């Protein structure tokens, strides 16, 4: 099969909706990332109460991205959104070293969730535009990402503010969803 026909096939398949969960601690930049994906204005973002949803078209997929608030009070509600998730995006504020441990714990708990077992995970090491941002490699080490064996994962440094690295992350998203569907 040639490349063109593969592309055509992808395009014509109606079942190309992908459900993506966007999670992480508050102040990590989830909503900014979501708005950036949708090319919307990011200057008036407020702390998320509840959630935001956006559909984004990318590479023949319709990505339904669920951005759930990261405040401690609403984290217990994350689980209400786990079902039928195709991919998890976890956002970390790379400059907030004080909460690396907390964010690591939340991520570990997510990866232990039965409803999310085997779901690919993309970790955005966000806020790389800040001078004190930790490099992605340091975060990967701190979170012991190399011990993840039960799913595919990727860590991507990015700045949701300037959109740097965001596209690279989304390319990985499409790639791994594709691989999973085959």
């Amino acid at each position, binding site marked *: 099969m040639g490349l063109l026909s593969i592309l055509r096939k992808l395009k014509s398949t109606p079942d190309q909706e992908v459900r993506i969960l966007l999670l992480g601690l508050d*102040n990590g930049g989830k909503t900014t990332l979501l708005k950036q994906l949708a090319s919307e204005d990011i200057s008036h973002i407020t702390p998320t109460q509840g959630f935001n949803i956006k559909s984004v078209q990318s590479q023949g997929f319709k990505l339904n991205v669920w951005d759930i608030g990261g405040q401690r009070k609403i984290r217990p509600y994350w689980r209400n959104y786990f079902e039928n998730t195709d991919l998890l995006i976890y956002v970390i504020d790379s400059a907030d*070293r004080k909460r690396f441990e907390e964010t690591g714990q939340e991520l570990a708990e997510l990866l232990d969730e039965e409803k999310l077992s085997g779901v690919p995970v993309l970790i955005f090491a966000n806020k790389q535009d800040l*001078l004190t941002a930790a490099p992605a490699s340091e975060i990967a080490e701190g979170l012991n990402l190399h011990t993840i064996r039960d799913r595919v994962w990727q860590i991507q440094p990015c700045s949701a503010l300037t959109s740097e690295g965001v*596209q690279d992350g989304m390319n990985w998203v499409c790639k791994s969803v594709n691989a999973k569907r085959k």
Partner: protein
Amino acid sequence: MDGISSEVSSNDAVKIPESILLRDQARLEELERRRNAKESQTVSEEKISYFSAAFSAEKAAIEKLISSCTPNEHLAATTSLEVATNKIQDLQKFLNDSKVFLTKYELRQAQESLQKLQGSIAEKRAEVMPKKKFAFRSRTAGASQQLEVTPASTEEKPKANTGNSVVDSAVSAKQCGFSHAHNEVLIKNSEDIQHGDVLLSHLTNCKVRLYGSPNTLHIKNVKGCQILSGPVSSSVFIDECEDCTLVLACQQLRTHNTTSTQIYLHVTSRAIIEDCHGVSFAPFNWMYPKLEDDFQMSGLDSERNNWSQVDDFNWLATGTPSPNWTVIPESERISCWDAAEPKL
């Protein structure tokens, strides 16, 4: 036959075929060679003179690009501004990569010129393309695949009631800011801050003045302090704060585990509180000579202040106001901070 078996048993675990050993040695040599090559290259590149030459050349190119834009040639101007934006991003990256061998002064200088460039781009953009939409497009145009968008549904509120507490890890000392101080007057001038990330932690009975425009501000474990800060371009994050007076301007404010604290606030989007009691708000009213410049640098709209619209994550009932925060009555507001101003 016998010879082989005896040899195997005598050396047992350590015997490795010679061909493998040779290959390993070759591999190590190759590694060493590459490392040497890399080192000699990086040494020449890491020279400060190399950095400043490359930086200023690139800076001049961007300046030229920006000044070449005129409102009459709309299309050309759009594309050159796009190119300039991308170039600034690359330059910032270059600066970040070079940070290890630059002195503080040079880093600051470079950061400053980058900010200037960003400012002049914004100015030019406003001049050439008055519509906001275009400005935004140019941000993402650099990406190879443009995402198409269908904004779908909106926001909804869950009924929250439970919570869990998690322990935070130790604080790194690498940031700009103050920690572990008692009964002191602490001042940062705008040269120290320079759009950096400021962290204030473990302070008791201190007076803190942050002149200039931080990129973000984190305040953690402070007690009985008076903290005044110039405009913060993104978010302020407060945790474990008690009996304090804070005077802040920012894009958004997140307040956690805070009690008996007054906040004089300028916030362009929204302030939230979580697990807080006795927090009271009033509008930002600190004045200092370069405040306006700092507002401009931060990108905050000085006209837009939502200080009185506070969301309480422990009080999601609509209609009834949260008991956890109040507005400071006008008669009780502190209006002059200079009286308490330490000498500079």
